[in-house]
């Protein structure tokens, strides 16, 4: 339903008076989301995941690449047709307080999209608003409240109700629970799962937290420094993570499960500067398996096994696959 092809987004930033640099926030990524599917996009800060979400809705104009929604290219649409199109796609942001107008009552906030798109008015509008609120677990008593009278979790529910007003086909959720406490987060995650099942919506779930992504996602894409490094269905990714970065990410997440001791991989170094990312594979300076080739060439995202995509030389050619060796010696076949 959604097809993203070689999407790139570069930002120009001014450094000092005369120097201009290019930040490559998103640097050539492709993926698709099927109808009723949840794609999880995981990555650390600065990996470009939010930019991907915004480019899909054209809240940011992509530098190059295309986004197709039901085979219609979004990139070529004019203002008016884009607005029509956006009815089908909605976004939920991280901080619910800044997504709601503090002077608007819940009733008006939820009714606004219906009014703008002339979907309902009068009594029908009232009914629609109430049923939307009920679908996210709120009720009558919340209609006349202002955002400051709601808790964080309730605010996020209002935001979700508002995005559902126009029956979208795609929801882009950008860190929907990271401003919330664990017990409230669980409520919102359950709500999203119910809504997704009931309304058969496709979702792009953006988060830095793999455990949340695992809870909701059908397939998971892992981003690092503007690129997708691994893409697979949820089970496969957790059982058999192949990219060294995914493996490190999985081991770095603290979990209150004791069980068999998981392998702890602590990465050295920091996330690369997107203005001047490392040559070759962007992960190579921190990678425990880096080879000489990794510094020179950039690995492509390749289908290794049944829709499991990995961008890593360790796996790209069968002859060079060393999935379990702790440290790879330098290979001679390169160059």
């Amino acid at each position: 339903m959604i097809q993203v092809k070689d999407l790139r987004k570069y930002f120009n930033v001014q450094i000092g008076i005369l120097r201009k640099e290019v930040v490559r926030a998103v640097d050539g990524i492709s993926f698709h989301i099927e109808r009723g599917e949840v794609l999880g996009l995981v990555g650390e800060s600065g990996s470009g995941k939010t930019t991907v979400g915004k480019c899909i809705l054209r809240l940011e104009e992509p530098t190059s690449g295309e986004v197709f929604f039901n085979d219609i290219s979004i990139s070529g649409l004019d203002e008016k047709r884009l607005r029509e199109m956006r009815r089908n796609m909605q976004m939920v942001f991280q901080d619910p307080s800044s997504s709601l107008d503090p002077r608007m009552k819940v009733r008006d906030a939820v009714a606004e999209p219906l009014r703008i798109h002339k979907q309902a008015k009068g009594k029908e509008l009232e009914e629609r608003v109430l049923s939307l609120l009920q679908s996210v677990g709120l009720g009558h008593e919340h209609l006349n409240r202002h955002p400051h009278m709601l808790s964080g979790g309730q605010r996020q529910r209002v935001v979700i109700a508002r995005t559902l007003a126009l029956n979208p086909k795609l929801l882009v959720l950008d860190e929907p629970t990271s401003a919330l406490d664990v017990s409230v987060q669980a409520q919102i995650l359950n709500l999203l799962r119910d809504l997704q099942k009931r309304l058969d919506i496709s979702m792009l779930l953006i988060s830095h937290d793999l455990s949340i992504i695992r809870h909701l996602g059908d397939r998971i894409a892992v981003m690092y420094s503007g690129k997708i490094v691994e893409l697979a269905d949820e089970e496969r990714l957790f059982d058999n993570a192949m990219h060294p970065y995914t493996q490190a990410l999985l081991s770095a997440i603290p979990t209150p499960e004791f069980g068999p001791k998981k392998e702890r991989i602590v990465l050295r170094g920091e996330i690369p500067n997107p203005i001047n990312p490392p040559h070759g594979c962007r992960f190579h300076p921190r990678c425990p398996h880096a080879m000489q080739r990794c510094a020179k060439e950039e690995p492509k995202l390749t289908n290794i096994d049944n829709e499991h995509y990995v961008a890593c030389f360790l796996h790209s050619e069968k002859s060079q696959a060393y999935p379990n060796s702790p440290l790879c010696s330098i290979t001679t076949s390169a160059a």
Partner: protein
Amino acid sequence: MKDALLSVRNLRVCFPTTYGLVAALDGVCLELEKEKILGLVGETGCGKTLTALSILRLLPPSARIVAGEIVLRKRNLLDLSESEIREIRGKEVSMVFQDPTSYLDPVFTVGEVMIEVLESRQKIGRREAIEASIEMLTKLRLPNPERILRLYPHELSGGMKQRVMIAIALLCHPELLIADEPTTALDVTIQAQILELIRDIVKELRTSVLLITHNLGIVAENCEEAAIMYAGTVVEHGEVRDVLEKPGHPYTRGLLSATPKLFQKKETLEVIPGSIPSLIDPPSGCKFHPRCSYAIGKCKRERPSPVGLEHGHYVSCFRIV
């Protein structure tokens, strides 16, 4: 407990508001043994940070400590004069905060701050202070420490700033380090680095740590003991595996089952019904009773006191499961 370094007993802290005196901490009890890492866990507003600030006597001026005592090596910190507590801050107890950016003064270099701390606290000369600073930065695995001393905070990344903060906190080899959400502002892979570092360095310096976090996973992987807070009280306290594998308090159980797991996938997460109570009008009896599925009449009327289970595992609940 035989080797208690710090014990907080029945601490009650109130704030005057337009609605009257509000008890933000309502009888907090904690024990921290020497050279142990204690994880203090709870959701927003349960009083984790306030407990930490009380230990250092850094509470906001409107706060009133109404009852309780905080004993650090047989001295009640609440009885000390302002100049005595200043001697303790930084030297015996020091603290690392959540957001390193707002605690590092932007107009001083890392070196200036570190040297000032050492000169004022340990009465040593400048040359020795520089050497000690470099040694500490090296312990925190910061590359090229001589250069770091000359840098301003804005020239450091988030992870590096937090390492510098930890270095400053540990400069005078305190016996107790309070780390308040030290990795919440950082990315997961950087968080793993910092936590590993804290674990290693406190073993080396034989420092005890009070690690405040909202993340049960961090506690499971880094702490030896855990204390769970709810609405200004500690509801469960014990060895980490006991608390997280055999939780006795319904709130601890609820918190654990509401956390999405990495290795077992569940269709729906179990949810604790209701929300955190208001401090202005707290529930009677056990503060968790309105949200608790095990609650009986007694829970509404009386406040449960800690019941001891095996090896120092305490649970404040009438209905321990």
